[in-house]
Structures are given as structure tokens and as C-alpha cells.
């Protein structure tokens, strides 16, 4: 108490000032988010003066510069985005959870200290480098394995995105497993369960919502990833027929066309409409992940 008194009026002023700064910083994040949303909305809406909303959402043909008839259907790109993303999760989720369980329950402290930073380092690889690996290594490998003429396929994108989503899935799953109270584990072991049984029947179910949230956040990462898929999936505009076909995702579509589109044209506004769709998708995936994480926190307290 004495030390607080010494600071006197200035101490109080400083404290309230610091609080204001932190409040402002928190508010800034919200303002930026709202600002981006408002800008996207304002720039996307004019597109629908000329594009039929129903056609936009249900047509599979996207060809804005067609000399025959400009078409603005996002279905192919939407399907490609979802396909590449779910493909990535299908690969990354089991591996990610297994690695998280290994780090939290199996590995010796020394191994853990080595493996954890390495996993986190995986997140530091620039996406353009991952894309290059896709072109130079993974793509040709896929072509060889499946006897295709080229490897620029949805599978290539999924594999690379799986690698990129792994760090998120591993570190959040591991947090979730670690936050399971020790009493649960002790109770399980006391009842005669071995470590494997404890992990699979007690810890993972208790941490399940956190693990699911890690998957959702990994998904958010995969949906929004641009450079890697742009380089690795071939960017063909047709509706995806399977994982061994070239696909073009929403992000790649925007990146390819925004560069030199004439400003303030329907095509320009339509690209922002694509951005809005993407924003809404990632927003809800992240929101769901947050809600699930919140639920887990409350459950374990």
C-alpha cells in the first residue's frame, strides 16, 4: 500500500493512461475488422447491379473476360476451395492429434523440448516456398504414383495445406490435452487403466472440444491460403471432378485476376464479392472454433 501511495496522483494518472492505451488497442482490432468487412461489402455490392445473385451462387462457370458472354458463377471455385480444404484436414487431423498426444503424453521431456519447436518452426515456412515444393517435388511425385501426365492437382494442394495446417492443429490440440486436470488422469490410472487407455478413453474425450477447435482453426488457415494453392493446383476453372484434377480455389481466383482487372467494372466488383464469400466462410469457421474452445474451458473449470 505504501508504495502505491508514494506514486500519488501521477501514479493514478499513469495507470488510467495505460488502461486507456490497452483499451484502444483492443478496440482497434475490432475497428479494423469492421472496416475490412464494410469495405468488402461496399465494393462487392455494386457487382450485383449486373450479376444475378442466384447465378453468382449456383452457376459453375466463371469467365468474366469471355468474348462470348461474361459469366460469374462461383460454384466451381467454392467447391474447389472446400474440396482442397477438407482433403487437407482429412490428412492433417489424424496426424496432428497423434503428434499432439505424443508430445503431451508419450515423449520424454527432452524429446518434447526438441519436437515442439520443430513443429512450431513448420508454421514459419513462407507459403511461396511450400508452393514451390509442391511444383518441384510433391506434384511430380503425385504424377508418378497415380500415373498422371502432371501433378498440379487438388491432391497436391491438399497435401501441402495439410502440412501448413499441422502446426495449428498440433499446438492447440496439445494445449487442450495438457489442460485436462491431473486428477482425471490420476483417477483413471488408480482404477487400473494403463497409459494408452487413459489417453484414448479419458484424456482425448475430455479435451475433445479443444481438439475439434484446433481442427477448425487449421481449416481457417487452409481456406484462406493463397500462394500455395495458386502455385500447386493448376488453376483450371472447370468444376472439380476429383482429387486428381486441376482445380482453382476462391483465393487463387482473386489473386490471378485482381492484378490487372480494370477498376470499377463489374469484374472488379465481382472479385470483391468473392472476397466477401471467403471472409464470411473464414469468419464463421473461426467463430465456431472460438465458441468450442470457450465451452471446453468452462467444462474443465
Amino acid at each position, binding site marked *: 500500500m505504501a508504495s502505491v501511495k508514494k506514486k500519488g496522483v501521477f501514479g493514478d494518472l499513469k495507470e488510467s493512461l495505460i488502461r486507456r492505451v490497452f483499451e484502444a488497442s483492443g478496440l482497434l482490432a475490432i475497428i479494423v475488422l469492421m472496416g475490412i468487412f464494410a469495405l468488402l461489402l461496399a465494393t462487392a455490392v455494386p457487382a450485383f447491379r449486373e450479376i444475378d445473385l442466384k447465378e453468382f451462387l449456383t452457376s459453375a462457370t466463371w469467365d468474366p473476360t469471355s468474348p*462470348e458472354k461474361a459469366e460469374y458463377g462461383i460454384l466451381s471455385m467454392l467447391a474447389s476451395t472446400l474440396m482442397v480444404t477438407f482433403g487437407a484436414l482429412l490428412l492433417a487431423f489424424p496426424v496432428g492429434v497423434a503428434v499432439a498426444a505424443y508430445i503431451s503424453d508419450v515423449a520424454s521431456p527432452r524429446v518434447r523440448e526438441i519436437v515442439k519447436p520443430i513443429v512450431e518452426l513448420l508454421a514459419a515456412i513462407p507459403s511461396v516456398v511450400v508452393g514451390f515444393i509442391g511444383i518441384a517435388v510433391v506434384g511430380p511425385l503425385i504424377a508418378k504414383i497415380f500415373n498422371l501426365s502432371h501433378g*498440379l492437382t487438388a491432391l497436391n494442394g491438399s497435401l501441402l495445406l495439410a502440412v501448413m495446417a499441422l502446426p495449428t492443429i498440433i499446438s492447440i490440440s496439445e494445449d487442450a490435452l495438457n489442460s485436462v486436470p491431473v486428477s482425471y488422469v490420476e483417477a483413471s490410472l488408480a482404477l487400473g487403466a494403463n497409459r494408452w487407455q487413459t489417453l484414448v478413453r479419458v484424456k482425448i474425450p475430455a479435451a475433445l472440444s479443444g481438439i475439434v477447435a484446433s481442427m477448425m482453426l487449421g481449416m481457417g488457415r487452409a481456406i484462406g491460403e493463397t500462394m500455395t494453392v495458386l502455385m500447386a493446383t493448376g488453376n*483450371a476453372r472447370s468444376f472439380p471432378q476429383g482429387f486428381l484434377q486441376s482445380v482453382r480455389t476462391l483465393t487463387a481466383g482473386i489473386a490471378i485476376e485482381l492484378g490487372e482487372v480494370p477498376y470499377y467494372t463489374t469484374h472488379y466488383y465481382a472479385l470483391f464479392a468473392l472476397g466477401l464469400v471467403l471472409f464470411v466462410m473464414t469468419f464463421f469457421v473461426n467463430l465456431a472454433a472460438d465458441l468450442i474452445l470457450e465451452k471446453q474451458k468452462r467444462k474443465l473449470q
Partner: protein
Amino acid sequence: MKALRTKAKLISGLVTISTVFVLALVMLTSPAGAQRKMIQIKGSDTLVNLVQILAEEYMAKKPGVAIAVLGGGSGTGITALINGTCDIANHSREWKPKELDLAYERGVKPRIFAIAVDGLSVIVNDKNPVNSLTMAQLGSLFRGEIKNWKQVGGPDLRVSLYGRQSNSGTYVFFQEHVLGNKNYSPDVKEMNGNAQIIESVTQDVAGIGYVGVGYLFDESGQLRKGIKVLKIKKDEGSPEYSPLDKEAVYSARYPISRPLYQSTNGKPSGNVADFIRFILSPEGQAIVEKEGFFKIGKELMAENEKNLR
């Protein structure tokens, strides 16, 4: 919406202010006679950068001559020449008969000069036995009508198409010139530039792609390994030409090339003639090559000489 409109207003305001400022500056600094010497050039967007660079080089050599280069498209340039609002029209296509009729009606007698040649090469994997294609076959391939190499005398392999993104001029040129202004097949894989197309076709035995001729060679001037440059026939009966045959490209006999033109009203004179002579000189043609186009071959150059006289 509102924000956008305000932004547009702000921009137009800024533009107005800066225009007034620039005008005032021009009026203050330019000598009185400059207005008469100003050469007005209008037309093709393909040519606007090239002609702008040529004009800058020329103006650096001949101070006192002012050249203004505007885009707007080939049609705009030709219309301006007919209406007498420009001295030179840039155009990347030939005059339409209708435009010629209108010109003669107005007493405008166009003289046409080929100043550069624009061209593309078509490449396949070097393991592909196909050596040449007709323009019709090439169009069908990229429209997605021919799906198997068997149909054009190749192996039983699904065709794998590589192209550029829609923002590329090459994409548009190929669409207009080879696809007959029809839609590309949605299966075309859109690559980020010429180098990536070459890289992909090198690895893909069923691949086919189009690239600028300049990209076919590595630093030492050797044709890149793993690719084969196709010879192209205008139609089944006509002779085939390779884009590696420079004379065929220079003379625009290679089918996927087009001369790029400038037209004047009647025989050019004074500064206009001098500027065109500069473009056609070895120095001007060197700039043409540096900007990624081809030089004019002997035959077209002979035509040009005739039109200058």
C-alpha cells in the same frame, strides 16, 4: 456505396485540380510554336507502350518535337484518323473494308506501315511425337473440343492444356487469334507467366502451352531442354512454319503472328514522316525487339519504303 461515391468525387476533384495545374504548367513553359509541332498518335493498346517508348527516344534526339501517344484500341485510332483528330493511328489489326470506304468518302487516303510483329509459339513435351498443327486444330484443342492427342495424330493421352491468366495480353491475343474469339476450355490450367508454362510442359508428356518466342531460349541462347516447338499451318493445305524461323515471323507468314501497324492520312511529311523513319530504322527496330516484339522482315519493310515515298 456512399463511401465509394465520395471517393470517386475526391478522385475526380484531384484529377481536375492536377489537370488544371499541368495545363497551366504547359502553357507557361512551352514555346509558342510547340503546339504546331505536336504529333498526335492514337489507337491500339498493344502498341501504346512501345510507341510511347519510341516517342520518348525520338523526342530525346529531336528536342522541339512533341509527341502525344494515347491508347483506346485500334478502332478508336482508325476512327480518329478518319475524323482528322490524330496524325498517326496505331492498330494491331488491318483496316476493315467499311472503315476504308468511310475514309475515302471523307477524302482520307490511309498509308499503312507495319512497324513491329507480335507472335507466339506453341510448345509440347519433347516426348510428344506431334510436330505440327493447323490453326483449326490448335483452336479446337484450347476450346476443349479435342480432348485426346490421338485425334491429332499423337499418342493415346488426355490433352493437358496450359495457358496464361485472363489479365494477360497474351491470353487475349491467343483467344482472338487462335480460338476465333470463343471461350477457352475451363480445363486450361492458368499459369503465372511464361516460365511456369515452360516448366510445366517440360514435366508433362501430354502438355501443350503457348508462350512468347523470347522465352524459348535459356541465357546462352539455346532452346530449352524438354520442350518441342510446334510448326503451325494456317490450314491443312498450306505450308507449315516454325516460330524459330525468324524470317517467317518477321514477314508474318508464321500464322500466330500479326504485324502491328501505324497509318497516316496520305503520304506522311515533316516530323510525322521523320518519326516513322526513326521507328523503321535499325535503331527503332532494336527498341521494338527490346520491348518483346519482332522486327519487321524484308518484305514488309519493302512495302513500308514504298509507302514512305
